[in-house]
């Protein structure tokens, strides 16, 4: 099983391409500008077909704490480490 990380905003092809090829059992972790995908947008529904995490410090830095979808789980850096441990491979979309 794969952990996908996305560090670009949804305007970048990274998110769409990731959603197109990510297996159902893979998780997606939003980091850096990738956290903007946690806001309501055209790709949110497709994103939420997966288990989705967002890096809390990046969400907080960008003022999105109150705005993010409740189905997205916040993790800190040790949560990021635990996800990497839990999944077999990391695929970084950037």
């Amino acid at each position, binding site marked *: *099983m794969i952990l996908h990380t996305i560090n670009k905003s949804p305007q970048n092809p990274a998110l769409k*391409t990731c959603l197109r090829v990510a*297996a159902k059992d893979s998780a997606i972790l939003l980091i850096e500008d990738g956290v903007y995908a946690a806001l309501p947008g055209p790709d949110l529904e497709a994103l939420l077909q997966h288990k989705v995490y967002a890096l809390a410090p990046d969400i907080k830095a960008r003022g999105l704490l109150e705005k993010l979808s409740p189905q997205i789980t916040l993790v800190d850096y040790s949560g990021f480490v635990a996800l990497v441990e839990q999944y077999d*491979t990391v695929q*970084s979309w950037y």
Partner: protein
Amino acid sequence: MSETKSFLVLNRHAPYASNFAKEALDVALMSAVFNQKTSLLFMDDGVFQLVRSQDPSEIQHKNCSQTLPMLEMYEVRHIYVDEISLNERGLSEEDLVIPAQRVNAQEISQLLTRQHVILNF
């Protein structure tokens, strides 16, 4: 070398505007030198790396596409290209400088799942 792993070099950036293409290819060749099971996948703007008739002589840049045939010399035979990325950019197999296997989203999904290591460029 303790073991053989499967390495996928995933290319998503167009050539020349950045060094991604050149430095990714170096990684793919190095993986082959280390006798690892090496594959390449071209997606998004990365498919532009495969376009034939590239001539960067006037921007004084090395021709990335001329290095691609070296993959075969290093016995890297698993070269894949995302068919949707090709279609979205109006490209077809005849436009490509080396033969690459067209793969759909499901095949890419399986390809990713088979890897021990994915190297993203």
